[in-house]
């Protein structure tokens, strides 16, 4: 609100610049700089384990010509999509209940509790899933005690998705709950008064009204899953590796930073495309029905 007073935007004085400039300098040095350098690095060469600054397409040709790169690409895209669909569907009933079917107090406590794990060591939580899902782990031990044979859950897509959801589910529930709690209750009530059955009210009134928030939640879920290496590595078995694992392998064991940069740039391009599409969809006005 305050900003509007200075609508003619006078020259900022020293005081104003003291608050404004530090972050600009910092982000250019340690955020924009690294990312741009990474893009440049994808054109560098490696000779005798030393990186030579150059402008060659070699790394791009090499990576794009390899089947394992494309296997990883499609796998990562598919896993992140699957994770987004599953997490969105699993989260929705809980968010719906928190937004419409519980008191303000319960909702606040639930969000308080959901924020804690989001900022709490994802790595250790995933490792814990490893021991829970293992062949002789907690779940199979329970199943065994009632006479059911062990189920293989590690090194499967199921394991990977469980790992992704460890990271994304708390965030998605929080974002969905905010989106649903903010819609105009009168419209929901009107639909009910006019005899719209509950399921149709959810699908044709509530979901479209909360569309923007629901899509943003799904987008965050996609970005987090797409970029995560812990779940596919420890719970998914990493065969074939996902793109983040490919970056690690190429950087750490291969010492091929420029090729890892190719993978990273492809990931960024994919994410920017998907984010752009999702945001367009999220803010598009509905065509009159």
């Amino acid at each position, binding site marked *: 609100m*305050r*900003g509007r007073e*200075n*609508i003619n*935007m006078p020259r*900022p004085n020293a*005081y*104003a610049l*003291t*608050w*404004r400039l*530090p*972050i*600009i300098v*910092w*982000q250019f040095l340690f*955020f924009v700089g*690294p*990312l741009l*350098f*990474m893009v440049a*690095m994808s054109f560098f060469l490696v000779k005798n384990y030393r990186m030579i600054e150059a402008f060659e397409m070699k790394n791009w040709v090499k990576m794009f010509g390899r089947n394992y790169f494309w296997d990883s690409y499609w796998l990562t895209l598919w896993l992140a999509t699957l994770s987004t669909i599953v997490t969105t569907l699993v*989260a929705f*009933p*809980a968010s719906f*209940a*928190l937004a419409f079917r519980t008191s303000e107090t319960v909702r606040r406590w639930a969000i308080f*509790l959901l*924020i*804690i*794990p989001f*900022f*709490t*060591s*994802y*790595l*250790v939580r*995933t*490792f*814990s899933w490893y*021991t*829970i899902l293992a062949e002789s782990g*907690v779940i199979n*031990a329970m199943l065994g005690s009632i006479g059911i044979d062990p189920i293989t859950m590690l090194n499967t897509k199921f394991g990977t998705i469980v790992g992704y959801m*460890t990271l994304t*589910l*708390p965030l998605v*529930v929080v974002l969905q709950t905010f989106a649903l709690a903010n819609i105009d209750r009168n419209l929901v009530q009107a639909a009910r008064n006019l005899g719209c059955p509950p399921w149709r009210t959810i699908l044709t009134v509530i979901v479209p009204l909360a569309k923007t928030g629901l899509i943003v939640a799904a987008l965050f879920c996609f970005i*987090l899953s797409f*970029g995560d*290496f812990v779940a596919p590595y*420890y719970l998914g078995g990493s065969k074939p590796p996902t793109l*983040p694992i490919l*970056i690690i392998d190429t*950087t750490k064991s291969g010492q091929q*930073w420029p090729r890892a*940069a190719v993978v*990273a740039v492809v*990931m960024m391009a994919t994410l920017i495309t998907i*984010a752009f599409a999702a945001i367009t969809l999220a803010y598009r006005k509905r065509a009159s029905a």
Partner: protein
Amino acid sequence: MTPRALDWGLRGYIALVFVFIFAPIVFSMIFSFNSDRFPTIPLGSFTTKWYEAIWNDPDVWKAVRTSLIVSGCTAILATALGFATAYTDYRYNFRFKSAYLALVLLPPTIPLIIMALAMLAWLSKIGASGQVWSIILAHTVLTAPFAMAVIRLRLNQMDASIEAAAWNLGASEWGAMRNVIVPYCKPAIISALCLTAAVSFDEFAIAWFVSGLNKTVPVMILEIVQGNIDPRVNALGTFVFLTSMTLVIIAQVVLMTRKGVKA
């Protein structure tokens, strides 16, 4: 189904979601006291040997020290930058302001592994990789947006005329900042310090890439779990959980209680 039954069903469902989210934390804590090497049920006997093992390991102490330095310095830097940005956004309008805000807020949306590679390459290039402060630089970029968001929300609740009143009463801009804005933002500043410290304390991808030999606790955990099943991870993990959970709880409670007082 009656609405009543449906409501109970939904409550049960929420409970299940919470079980899914908290099960790994609870199991990790339980197994950290379990004597068996491979964690499963039925449990073995109660033991504190895994805690003794990490307590007596000098590498763990070194990692804890590094982690505390990194998260402490990150928290201070990120909160200072976050405060400056939040105040700028609150008070000023200028050209390219949305680009300015995007520049500040985007880092957490970039996958950590990409930031890790980019940081490693860039910091090596400028001769700043492999140091404790390399991690601090990178973590500050990552966490400043969280500080900015928390403090900006607090400023949102502040009546713009309060600062103007201070000026009218003769305070300089710096005086009003020191005596009006900063005290008003104090709970948000404490909250931001805790939150950024927690994020930094838990971050392992960037730290793993740029830290060189200066391992933080999560990097140490990452290296242990790449080998065999080792119950020390549960003990170390419990320590990490308790630390970051405490920080995140403080971060939230500080904001909540102050809101309550004001209302």
